[in-house]
């Protein structure tokens, strides 16, 4: 039955809460089955729990989506004690139920061990990865089964919607968002309130709001985790935005590669519609709003606003010139407001807690928190949410736990293919929109890829240019050919065919590509190249002049040799070598025949005594 008034919504909430209270502090198990943990085997653990628990109703079993600490998946939390188990396998399930759930005993071997102190840490709260975070938007994932709207209700869900619909005018909502200082989380950092205002003021009866869940940045997955783990928070944000803007139709554009996000947001829309939170005359307010899901076709440029709208219209996702803003003439030439998933998910928080409270978090120009995907050469890989302005050093070392294997930190890449690399000398940079841009990178959608001494920065630049030349839609010559030419030059450099003047040439095409391209793909395409030249020029020069790859990555510039002193002549490399390039017998140190070596790295991988050297 659809709810017809705010009172009915509150009655339902009270009922849910009372039912839960009546059951007392239930013993419970929370298992993360988000994409990261599924990759690590959470589905099998899920089946094992289901089987072991059977219909034992005394134990509540909840499967949630991403908690963020993906490095340690599959993650299981035993309530009410909050015991945190990592790397859980189906074999651990009976013991968890028998000992921890039933008797409250902790299983040492499943606990997180702090690499710094060597001590085990029994609860989530005390793990350094979590303590420094401020999980305003992302934190609820841990408490929600995303397929149950009741869970969202129990946490105060749709309260902000009621506040907006019944206690605020659309203008007041816009004013509140403006005062909060919320900036778009999808890349550009445009003030959300201002965008809403211009869309509200635009002429036309029919207006659209769209949620951008295309998330094309390779190495970023926060939008996906929000959409999978807490879809109602995104819907609630969109409802509030649509009310403020005067829109009654919306779209959720989800990337093709995200089937679970599509599924969960689909369930959320269905449930919200059944409850009367979507549809006609929502909660008796007279406000109508409905939502449609669109699946993308897997193209990076489809995340760009005008390209995304072309894609919804059924065309190829090519951007168009924006002499007229999307807020005036967007989807089907009607005023359209597009925001990113995380931007939308911030809206209910702001409306509920107030703009002043929100604006007290963060820096002068960037308010609130930001979710980052902290990945690459870092100990604690995962999704983190921190207040704007936290330094890179705190993120990499305090939350990320530093670089694995005692290696030396080299750079953090932020902003995805449109961003750049930030070197060690800037580790104390406070991370916000403006500081990152000043450093020659950008916030982007929040990817943070950590690189260590064994990452080659020229190779990284080449990697991004390869990506961009493939993903450029080809409409502008400057972007299509600029990215291709930069890639060719970088490819030559990494193959030892670089020549004097290449760096200057890259700078020149980079500048031209940025200046002459229509959309921000071309506009920012040179960033990965220019920022690596800016901070790692010596590496470029080593490749070009000395024909040397200091990080030992570029295969044409390195040689594999076996250190005869370290070689134990076990024969593993000889057997493993795909080109039979290794000679030697038992007890005789092995040798690599350079003419046959294809530098695939197999010998180094299989060597038990670390005798294979790369230089």
């Amino acid at each position, binding site marked *: 039955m659809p709810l017809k008034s705010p009172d009915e919504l509150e009655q339902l909430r009270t009922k849910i809460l009372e039912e839960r209270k009546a059951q007392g502090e239930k013993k419970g198990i929370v298992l993360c089955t988000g994409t*990261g943990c599924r990759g690590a085997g959470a*589905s099998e653990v899920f089946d094992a729990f289901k089987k072991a628990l059977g219909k034992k109703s005394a134990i509540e079993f909840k499967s949630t989506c991403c908690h963020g600490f993906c490095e340690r998946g599959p993650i299981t939390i035993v309530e009410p004690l909050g015991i945190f188990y990592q790397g859980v396998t189906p074999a651990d399930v009976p013991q968890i139920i028998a000992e921890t759930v039933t008797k409250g005993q902790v299983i040492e071997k499943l606990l997180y061990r702090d690499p710094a102190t060597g001590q085990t840490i029994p609860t989530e709260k005390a793990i350094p990865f979590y303590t420094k975070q401020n999980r305003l938007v992302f934190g609820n994932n841990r408490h929600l089964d995303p397929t149950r709207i009741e869970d969202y209700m129990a946490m105060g869900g749709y309260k902000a919607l009621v506040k907006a619909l019944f206690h605020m005018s659309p203008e007041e909502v816009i004013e509140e968002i403006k005062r909060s200082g919320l900036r778009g989380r999808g890349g550009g950092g445009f003030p959300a309130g201002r965008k809403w205002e211009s869309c509200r003021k635009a002429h036309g009866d029919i207006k659209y709001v769209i949620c951008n869940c295309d998330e094309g940045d*390779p*190495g970023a997955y926060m939008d996906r985790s929000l959409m999978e783990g807490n879809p109602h928070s995104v819907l609630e944000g969109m409802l509030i935005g649509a009310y403020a803007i005067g829109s009654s139709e919306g779209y959720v554009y989800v990337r*093709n590669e995200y089937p679970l996000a599509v599924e969960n947001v689909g369930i959320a829309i269905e449930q919200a519609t059944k409850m009367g939170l979507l549809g006609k005359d929502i909660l008796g307010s007279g406000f109508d709003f409905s939502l449609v899901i669109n699946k993308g076709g897997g*193209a990076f440029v*489809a995340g760009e606003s005008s390209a995304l709208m072309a894609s919804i219209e059924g065309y190829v996702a090519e951007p168009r010139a924006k002499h007229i803003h999307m807020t005036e003439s967007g989807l089907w030439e009607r005023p359209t407001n597009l925001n990113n998933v995380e931007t939308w998910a911030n809206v209910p928080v702001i409306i509920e807690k107030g703009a002043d409270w929100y604006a007290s978090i963060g820096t002068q120009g960037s308010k609130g928190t930001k979710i980052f995907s902290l990945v*690459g050469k870092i100990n604690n890989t995962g999704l983190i949410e921190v207040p704007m302005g936290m330094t890179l050093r705190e993120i990499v070392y305090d939350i990320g736990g530093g670089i694995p294997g005692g290696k030396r930190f080299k750079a953090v890449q932020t902003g995805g293919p449109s961003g750049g690399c930030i070197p060690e000398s800037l580790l104390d940079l406070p991370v916000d929109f403006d500081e990152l841009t000043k450093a020659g990178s950008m916030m982007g959608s929040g990817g943070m890829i950590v690189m260590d001494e064994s990452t080659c920065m020229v190779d990284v630049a080449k990697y991004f240019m390869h990506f961009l030349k493939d993903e450029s839609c080809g409409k502008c010559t400057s972007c299509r050919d600029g990215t291709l030419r930069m890639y060719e030059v970088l490819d030559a450099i990494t193959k030892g065919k670089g020549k004097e003047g290449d760096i200057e040439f890259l700078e020149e095409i980079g500048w031209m590509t940025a200046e002459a391209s229509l959309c921000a793909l071309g506009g920012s395409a040179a960033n990965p190249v220019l920022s690596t030249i800016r901070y790692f020029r010596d590496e470029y020069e080593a490749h070009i002049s000395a024909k040397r790859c200091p990080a030992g990555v570029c295969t044409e510039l390195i040689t594999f040799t076996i250190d005869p002193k370290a070689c134990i002549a076990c024969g593993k490399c000889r057997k493993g070598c795909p080109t039979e390039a290794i000679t030697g017998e038992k007890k005789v140190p092995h040798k690599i025949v350079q003419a046959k070596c294809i530098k695939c790295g197999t010998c180094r991988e299989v060597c038990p005594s670390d005798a294979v050297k790369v230089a």
Partner: protein
Amino acid sequence: MTGAQLENILKKHDYQKSSLLAILQDVQALDNYLPRKTLEAMSQRLQVPLTQIYYLATFYRAFSLTPRGDHLVTVCTGTACHVKGAATILNTLERELAVQPGETTSDKKYTLETVNCLGSCALAPLVVLDGHYHGRMVGTKVLSLLKGDKKDASKKS
């Protein structure tokens, strides 16, 4: 794909030209590629030029115009996987299967593809074999994976 199956898909989307992308997705989901005959029939039924359908089908990564092999091997070449050695894994597979990404082996057994980030960066580098995620890959592991070595417990996702 039979004519009736195509008709069902078209009907589901109300014969709308604006749903072309979604229609192609449904065809791809059913046949695992976009057969030329189906695209020609679609062009007829919807009165859309075949060139326009071809334009869409070649623009988006999700579509394939050639049939895929029995097994789909996908290497993640997202940034996190790249810095952790995805290139070596891809090279190994290219050498072993003697195909380039996007191609199918001549015995139609394997199709090799790449993808940009699967949201499991913590397991980088990542290889997906027929929907099963295999994390923290190295060259030798990927070879035993292809050989169906059961020691590499597969993780369904």
